[in-house]
C-alpha cells in the first residue's frame, strides 16, 4: 500500500480564483454570497447565491475551448491548471500512461442544458449549438483535463449529488493507495446557478432567501454557490523521489449509505461514514482536530450532523465549521472546495469560521468556530459530505 499525499491544489469559487485568494477570504471570514446576476433572476423567489464574479473565459481558453467548455468544465480546467502547475509534474512516458483523473459533479453542463432548452422551448428555435452534447456531458470536465495533460490512465466522473466530490476524491485516494495509479487529479466542479437549476431547487423549499447560517438557531436553509477545486493526489514515494512540496497526506476514506430517505438525512449513516474514515486511517477519534462539516444550513442536516459528530467523538469534540456560509453550497463540487479549508487548517494552523452565525442552537452543541477564524494546531482533519439520497463520503487528512 502506498501512502498518498497532495502535491497540488487549484480552485475557483465565489471567494477567489485561486487557493491564495480563497485562503485569504476564509481566514478573514469573508462571505461570497450576494445578489445573483443571471438571466430572468426577477422570476426567481430565491435571488442570492455565491456566484463567481469577474471570470472572463476568453482570458483562459482559446476559441476551440470556448465553444467546447461549459462553465463547469471551465472551472474544472482552470482549477486543474493551478494544481498541476503547483505540483511541478510533467506527464510523459510511463507516468502519462498510468496517471488519470476522477471528478465529481452533480449537474454536469447545466448551463448548456439551460441554454439549449431556452432556445428550443422559449425562443422557438429549431436548432441548438452543434456542440451541445459534448458540452453538457457530466464527464466533460474529466475528459478535457485528461486531454489537456495527456493523462491516459483511468479517467471518469462520479455523481452522488452533494457528495460527488468526496466520492471522487475517495476513489482517487484508493487508486493511488492501491498502486493502480501513481498520480490522480481529482476534485469536483459545479455550475448550477442557472435559471433552470435554481428553479428546481426552489421547488424543494429548502433554500434561504437572505443568508446561509449553518448551525445557527435561526438558520433558514441553504444558499447555492458554484465553482471547482482540483487536487493532485500522488504516491508519497513518487512525490519524495522528485522532491515535491507536500501539502498534506490523505489517510482515510469511507462511504456509507443511509438506505433511508431521498431527502432526509440519517445520523446513523453519517456516524458510520466518519467512524469508517477513522478506521481506514487507523487513527483514534481523539486525534481529529477539525471537521469541515457538510453544514448546509438546513434544519434537517445541521442537527443531524451534530448528533452524528457527538456520537463519534463523545465529549472530546473537535472544532467544526461549515464554509458553505462563505462559498455557498457548490453541490457536486462542494467537497472539493471544502477540502481547501482542511488544507488551511493543517498547513497554516488556521481553522476557517462558520460565518453568518447569530445564535447557538442547543440541538447542535458543538463549537462551530462562529464568524472568526481560529488558530489551532490541527494534526488530522475530516471533510464530511452527506448527500440527498443518503450517500455519505468522508475523507481524513493529516498534516505533513
Amino acid at each position, binding site marked *: 500500500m502506498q501512502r498518498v499525499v497532495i502535491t497540488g491544489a487549484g480552485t475557483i469559487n465565489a471567494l477567489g480564483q485561486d487557493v491564495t485568494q480563497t485562503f485569504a477570504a476564509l481566514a478573514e471570514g469573508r462571505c461570497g454570497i450576494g445578489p445573483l446576476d443571471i438571466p430572468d433572476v426577477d422570476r426567481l423567489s430565491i435571488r442570492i447565491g455565491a456566484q463567481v464574479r469577474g471570470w472572463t473565459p476568453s482570458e483562459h481558453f482559446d476559441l476551440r475551448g470556448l465553444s467546447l467548455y461549459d462553465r463547469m468544465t471551465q472551472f474544472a480546467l482552470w482549477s486543474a491548471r493551478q494544481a498541476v502547475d503547483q505540483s511541478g509534474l510533467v506527464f510523459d512516458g510511463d507516468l502519462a500512461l498510468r496517471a488519470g483523473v476522477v471528478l465529481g459533479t452533480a449537474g454536469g453542463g447545466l448551463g448548456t442544458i439551460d441554454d439549449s432548452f431556452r432556445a428550443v422551448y422559449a425562443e422557438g428555435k429549431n436548432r441548438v449549438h452543434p456542440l451541445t452534447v459534448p458540452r453538457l456531458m457530466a464527464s466533460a470536465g474529466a475528459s478535457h483535463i485528461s486531454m489537456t495533460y495527456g493523462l491516459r490512465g483511468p479517467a471518469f466522473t462520479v455523481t452522488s449529488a452533494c457528495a460527488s466530490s468526496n466520492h471522487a476524491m475517495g476513489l482517487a485516494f484508493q487508486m493511488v493507495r492501491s498502486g493502480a495509479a501513481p498520480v490522480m487529479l481529482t476534485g469536483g466542479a459545479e455550475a448550477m446557478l442557472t435559471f433552470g437549476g435554481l428553479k428546481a431547487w426552489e421547488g424543494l*423549499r429548502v433554500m434561504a432567501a437572505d443568508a446561509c447560517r449553518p448551525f445557527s438557531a435561526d438558520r433558514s*436553509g441553504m444558499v447555492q454557490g458554484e465553482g471547482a477545486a482540483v487536487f493532485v493526489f500522488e504516491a508519497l514515494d513518487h512525490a519524495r523521489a522528485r522532491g515535491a512540496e507536500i501539502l498534506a497526506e490523505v489517510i482515510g476514506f469511507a462511504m456509507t449509505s443511509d438506505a433511508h430517505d431521498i431527502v432526509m438525512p440519517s445520523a446513523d449513516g453519517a456516524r458510520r461514514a466518519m467512524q469508517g474514515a477513522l478506521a481506514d486511517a487507523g487513527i483514534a477519534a481523539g486525534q481529529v482536530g477539525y471537521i469541515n462539516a457538510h453544514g448546509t444550513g438546513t*434544519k434537517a442536516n445541521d442537527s443531524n450532523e451534530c448528533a452524528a459528530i457527538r456520537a463519534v467523538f463523545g465529549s472530546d469534540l473537535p472544532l467544526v465549521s461549515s464554509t458553505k456560509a462563505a462559498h455557498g453550497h457548490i453541490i457536486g463540487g462542494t467537497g472539493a472546495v471544502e477540502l481547501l479549508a482542511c488544507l488551511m487548517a493543517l498547513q497554516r494552523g488556521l481553522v476557517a469560521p462558520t460565518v453568518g452565525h447569530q445564535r447557538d442552537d442547543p440541538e447542535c452543541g458543538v463549537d462551530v468556530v462562529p464568524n472568526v477564524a481560529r488558530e489551532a494546531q490541527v494534526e488530522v482533519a475530516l471533510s464530511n459530505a452527506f448527500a440527498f439520497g443518503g450517500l455519505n463520503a468522508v475523507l481524513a487528512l493529516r498534516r505533513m
Partner: protein
Amino acid sequence: MTQTAQTIFAIIAEKALLAPSDLTPETRLADLALDSLAMVELIFALEEAFDISVPFNANDPAAQEFDLSSVGAIIAAVEGLLSQKAA
C-alpha cells in the same frame, strides 16, 4: 362548500392517500402523516390549482405566514391569497 374548498379537499386527500370524505375542516395536517416531500408537493398543487404563490420554507414549517395547521386553515389561507390577487 365553495369550489375553492372542494378543490383543496381533493388536493389534500390525494396527497394523504385518503378520500375527500375522510377530511373535515378540523382535520389537522399533523394527523395525516404527510412526509416532507408530500408537504412540498401539496403546496405546489395548491399553487398550480389557484395560480398563487404560497410562502413556505421547509426549514421552519411552524413559523410560516401561511397557516398549514388544518384543512380549514389552508382553505382560509388560500382564500386570503386569492382575495389579495383579486384586489
